[in-house]
């Protein structure tokens, strides 16, 4: 078991992916160690969702390899839980039925009572006991995302992949959910890959931040380690010097990559 922690749980090896003639990702390499929280920040449309789809196994790379525990990844599976950007809850099922769908599938061999307890535990973890019998249509965006999170976590995945989980929410809800995520990430001790366009969110949640350069043909930039001790407090964070330093470095890198992209576009396409 001990030597397993040296092997990356999930890795991309020089991966490229195109859709049609557009090259979305180019030469992306990434290694994720068990138990760490990695945030990938980038502009909208830079290929962040594609990156998550590759890690989940929903998409296959054109070039390079995706490995899970050292073995080539060929298909999606519940050991890599995904929280989708648009929640992807089934609208005809209640909140707890949505969670239950995952639990029944993953823990099919366990007795029914145990499955129910598992569903309840995770509904509780995301603070939705009062709304467990409601359907997604009757829930706010923030509540829906909590259900989606509960569904992913209740399946007890080895890695949790989150595709801009909070980007569709208003600022206030987003802040509250960021705090919840920070707590859940810390308490569950899960390996998490979080894709976001919010640098503050990345710093709040991650051990390590990787900027994704502006697309097309996006690639990962230098890593930024976040050494701010946990638990982290969102409101107190802005006064931490390391936070301000990290934030400006990451933002500078991202803006720099965008300027470079524009400059090279201008050079290759003379008017």
């Amino acid at each position, binding site marked *: 078991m001990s030597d397993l922690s040296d092997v990356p749980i999930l890795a991309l090896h020089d991966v490229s992916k195109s859709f049609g003639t557009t090259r979305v990702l180019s030469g992306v390499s990434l290694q994720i160690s068990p138990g760490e929280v990695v945030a990938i920040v980038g502009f909208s449309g830079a290929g962040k969702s594609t990156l998550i789809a590759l890690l*989940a196994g*929903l998409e296959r790379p054109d070039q390079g390899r995706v490995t899970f525990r050292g073995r080539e990844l060929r*298909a*999606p*599976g*519940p050991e*890599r*839980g*995904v929280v*989708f950007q*648009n929640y*992807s809850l*089934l609208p*005809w099922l209640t909140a707890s039925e949505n969670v239950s*769908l*995952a639990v029944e*599938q*993953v823990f099919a061999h366990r007795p029914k009572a145990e499955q129910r307890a598992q569903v309840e535990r995770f509904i509780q973890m995301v603070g939705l006991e009062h709304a467990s019998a409601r359907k997604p249509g009757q829930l706010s965006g923030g509540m829906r995302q909590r259900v989606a999170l509960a569904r992913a976590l209740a*399946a007890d995945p080895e890695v949790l992949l989150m595709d801009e989980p909070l980007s569709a929410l208003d600022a206030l809800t987003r802040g509250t959910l960021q705090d919840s995520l920070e707590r859940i990430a810390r308490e569950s001790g899960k390996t998490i890959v979080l894709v976001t366009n919010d640098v503050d969110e990345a710093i709040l949640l991650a051990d390590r931040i990787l900027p994704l350069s502006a697309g097309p043909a996006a690639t990962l930039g230098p890593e930024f380690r976040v050494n701010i001790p946990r638990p982290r407090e969102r409101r107190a964070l802005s006064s931490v010097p390391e936070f301000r330093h990290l934030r400006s470095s990451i933002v500078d890198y991202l803006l720099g990559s965008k300027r470079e992209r524009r400059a090279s576009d201008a050079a290759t396409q003379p008017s």
Partner: protein
Amino acid sequence: MTTRAMSSEAISDSGASEPGGDPALNDTNASQVVARPRPGTDLSGSARARLPSRLEQTIGNAALPLIGVGVVLLLWAAASATFASSLPSPSKTWEVSRLYVLEPFEKRGELDQGILRFTWYSLQRVTKGYAIAILIGAPVGFLLGMSKLFRGSFDPIIQILRPVSPLAWLPLGLVLFHKPEPAGIFTIAMCSMWPTVLNTALGVRAVPQDYLNVARVLKLSRAKTLFKILLPAALPYMFTGFRLSLGIAWLVIVAAEMLTGAPGVGGFLWQEYNALIYEHIILCILTIGLVGFALDRLMGLVEQRLRAA
């Protein structure tokens, strides 16, 4: 892109039902226009919000259809009194039909029964044909929606069989089954199947990729994906198909019964034409219309329930 297309569609729909501002007209327009379910656009709600007032609406709902009925009765009476002398007048029609309406379930002889008793026979026949149509149509629709191979192979033939008239299927049914009863049911099934097939296929293809991704990540089996994801997601579309299919099934029953002489509203209609009792033709037409209307409304209610859930 898709939201844009949807909203422009919604605009043209409500635009079509606006002129006149007649609530009764609006209502029927809306139910005809919405051939496909469009989750998220509440058409009836927006149409209703534009009406002048609640009171006017209530009066309009009750009174305007009565005015319409009155006008048609007058035109009918005028026509039968002037140029169309063989057309029985409204009062004559009532007199002659009275017995059949007031004792709707009476059975006086094989060909002399109350109008609702005949209707009941027809409904039984329709139910059988319709059940076959749905039992075959829904799975075929699923295959059509799920498999490119199946779609490529069978879509053309479906498009060719779809517009074939019941009058063409019936003789083939008689050839196949030698008896009028199964031939009629066969005809109903063959004609009413297509809206269920096509709407089910549409519904299956419209299932969001996100739902399928959830199924893939959870590694749901094919059967589970079908019953837990595809079927519930496609159900609103399927119900639209069921509703249209029922309308066609009822339309076809008359033709089937007329040609086979089976006891039912259609059979009664044809027999009374041969017996020169034209009043009963009108009675049958009205009954067929009312029953068809009731069936459509019933399916509409079920559909609404389903979509609200």
